């Protein structure tokens, strides 16, 4: 056996006990959907894993009604400590079934078992454990002495971290006292179905969490439903825009976690061994299917050649193949459609004049695969420097001065994340101040933790997930009393602020939206 050649070490899929078909999870039970049942396949083999029910508008309606009922009759009346106990139970059940969930996720999504086992699933448990403890401490969240739950939360999540995104959405929503209707991505519903079984084991009251599977139209029916109070979405910026339009003029509270085109900035004094590993982790982790991926490498000109050489060397040692093999570094691309998008954008990169290098690795015959690829000689105007590729493709640009690095890093409508590699602490801190990004990793990349807020600037969306800040997305601030003398007793009645536009219910835009004018002058024409 040659150097760095390993014998296959597949994780056994026999730990799974999958059903041939999964229904929707509504009001604590699996039920049939009104839409056409669809297959979920393994992107590594293109084989059908299970059949998944499709929710139509009527099913979404049922799910929202169940969530509303559970909110009114059970969840909003339960003590915070009891809500917390349910979340602790869920965290423990996830830990108990961790390996099973990791295998199912790798099978359904195509990501390596090493990642699902060591990153995704442990973080899922950590997320529930973290937010469980908040449930009876909401008055300490910085939102006033008596923050209130919003009601029913509609949540739509992507396919890149199926179960982890579910946890990011459900854990804070339930801790804050909301009930949930969540829609997994069409290609990755499987672990959500296993999670529904966990909810049954936890004996979570029926209707507190409802899971509706299906395509984009299911999600659209969900976010535009009149009886939801909160919409949370993670996915593409284009769909985010559409949702922002749908929610405009309603009372629904909205948080969006959208695309990114992160700069990963490497200075000539960077700790180079760590930097190379960090760059690789930044863009090739999860096949580059990461919204905060370090897809634009900004290298100081003096070390450009060294960095690129070492990257190529390192990428040549990555193993691409069976996601269930414990030695696999690069798994399958999640879908044929995504593979097509990566190919198209990469071809565009080549056509626009960038220089393409692809790691020499064997591509399996079946399934969707894309070998790790680096583009050098990339300019800021190239498509591959501007558009989110969402695949294992790195664009390398150069800079000379810190000012140039900042200008190039910020030259994007996105603002989700960034990375800085330098041993000079003072320069790193100064740079951090200038980067318009919601998460900055200094001498590391792609770290996530339930206590650490995550979310973007600009067109990467708004709101934060994780940490104390993540609670604000699911609570209405009670506010503190206005300062004495400023708008309380001593202020003229006309100045006392009424609640924001049409505070009752989530009825249609213009009808409900118009705030009552407390006092309006007459006369005074134009």
């Amino acid at each position, binding site marked *: 056996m040659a150097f760095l050649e390993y014998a296959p070490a597949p994780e056994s899929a026999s730990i799974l006990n999958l059903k041939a078909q999964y229904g929707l999870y509504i009001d604590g039970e699996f039920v049939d959907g009104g839409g056409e049942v669809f297959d979920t396949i393994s992107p590594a083999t293109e084989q059908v894993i299970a059949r998944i029910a499709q929710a139509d508008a009527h099913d979404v309606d049922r799910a929202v009604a169940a969530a509303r009922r559970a909110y009114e009759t059970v969840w909003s009346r339960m003590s915070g400590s009891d809500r917390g106990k349910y979340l602790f139970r869920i965290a423990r059940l996830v830990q108990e079934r961790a390996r099973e969930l990791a295998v199912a996720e790798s099978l359904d999504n195509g990501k390596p078992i090493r990642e699902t086992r060591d990153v995704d699933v442990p973080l899922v448990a950590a997320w529930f454990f973290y937010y469980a403890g908040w449930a009876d401490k909401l008055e300490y969240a910085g939102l006033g002495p008596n923050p209130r739950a919003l009601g029913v939360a509609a949540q739509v999540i992507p396919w890149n971290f199926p179960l982890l995104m579910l946890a990011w959405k459900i854990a804070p929503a339930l801790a804050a006292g909301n009930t949930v209707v969540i829609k997994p991505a069409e290609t990755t519903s499987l672990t959500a179905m296993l999670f529904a079984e966990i909810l049954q084991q936890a004996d979570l009251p029926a209707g507190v969490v409802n899971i509706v599977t299906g395509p984009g139209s299911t999600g659209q029916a969900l976010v535009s439903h009149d009886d939801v109070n909160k919409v949370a979405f993670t996915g593409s910026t284009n769909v985010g825009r559409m949702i922002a339009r749908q929610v405009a003029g309603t009372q629904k509270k909205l948080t969006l976690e959208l695309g990114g085109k992160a700069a990963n900035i490497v200075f000539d004094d960077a700790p180079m061994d760590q930097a190379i590993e960090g760059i690789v982790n930044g863009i090739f982790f999860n096949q580059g299917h990461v919204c905060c991926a370090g897809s634009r490498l900004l290298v100081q000109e003096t070390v450009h050649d060294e960095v690129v050489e070492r990257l190529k060397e390192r990428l040549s040692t990555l193993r691409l193949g069976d996601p269930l093999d414990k030695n696999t570094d690069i798994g399958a691309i999640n879908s044929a459609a995504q593979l097509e998008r990566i190919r198209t954008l990469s071809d565009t990169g080549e056509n626009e004049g960038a220089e393409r290098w692809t790691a020499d690795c064997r591509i399996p015959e079946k399934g969707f695969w894309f070998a790790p690829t680096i583009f050098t000689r990339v300019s800021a105007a190239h498509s591959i420097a501007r558009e989110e590729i969402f695949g294992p493709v790195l664009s390398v640009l150069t800079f000379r001065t810190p000012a140039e690095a900042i200008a190039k890093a910020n030259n994007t409508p996105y603002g989700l994340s960034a990375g800085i590699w330098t041993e000079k602490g003072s320069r790193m801190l100064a740079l951090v101040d200038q980067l318009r990004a919601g*998460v*900055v990793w200094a001498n590391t990349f792609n770290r996530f933790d339930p206590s*650490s807020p995550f979310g973007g600037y600009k067109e990467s969306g708004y709101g934060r997930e994780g940490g104390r800040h993540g609670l604000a997305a699911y609570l209405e601030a009670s506010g503190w009393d206005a300062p004495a003398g400023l708008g309380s007793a001593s202020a003229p009645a006309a*100045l006392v602020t009424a609640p924001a536009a049409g505070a009752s219910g989530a009825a249609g835009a213009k009808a409900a939206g118009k*705030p009552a004018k407390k006092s309006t*002058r007459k006369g005074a*024409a134009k």
Partner: protein
Amino acid sequence: MTRLSVPKTYKLAIGGAFPRSESGRTYEVLAADGGFLANAAKASRKDARDAVVAARSAFAKWSGATAYNRGQVIYRIAELLEGRRAQFIDEISRTEGVSAAEASAQVDLAIDVWVWYAGWADKYAQVAGNANPVSGPYFNLSVPEPTGVVAAVAPQGVTGGSLLGIVSVVAPIILTGNTVVVVADETAPLSAISLAEVLATSDVPGGVVNTLTGSPAEIMPWLAAHADVNALDLAGAGSLDGSSGASWVDLQLAAAETLKRVLAPVAGVPRPALERISAFVETKTVWHTKSML
């Protein structure tokens, strides 16, 4: 013998200067009793775009100033407002048709609102920020930063609000380092322009607060759709019902195209509140690696 007075020409405030509208348009501002008060500039799309350029240019310096410095500048606004109260009482009582005592009470409140927000400048990050206990060898810190350029609608036609309204909107926006383009109360814009004169002499750098007079229904759609505006404060936009131009829902729809942060309309004058500061900040979280010893 009475002296013939020298009336003021009310203009826009953009980038530290006081230009007329590039369109050459004006509109009559009338007193509560219907008498003529002034010809205010009727800002155009071009004026709004110029104001955004000015606000963007001012952002780096203002957001880069120390919080202590911003706090002192904002406090100084209160000081100068105090010194010019007679002028504001006169303008308020004539435009709103209220007594001098009521106008005086409004000026008091406006001054006190500046003072209240001034004190937040170097404390807000402590209240909104967080040290995060992540599982790993990282020093992890979340801090609030200003969102960028905010376009705002001052409360429209609120009795007791022709000065207090715009102050209550602008103060929480700028205190964290944002810059603002604010559309004044259409029918009572005089105090807003006089306030701009106070700001210009209060060490507020030019371009931090840009004040437009005219029709919010006409001007706001351009600002809501402007790709270099990061957020909208629709405080006074509730009265825009679409009967004469854009409604506030139209503005929110336009804002969705560039994913602007939007603060919903309120009735009356917004009360001083931490939430108004929080609406226009971003949370930046930084992971600093700790080395092994």
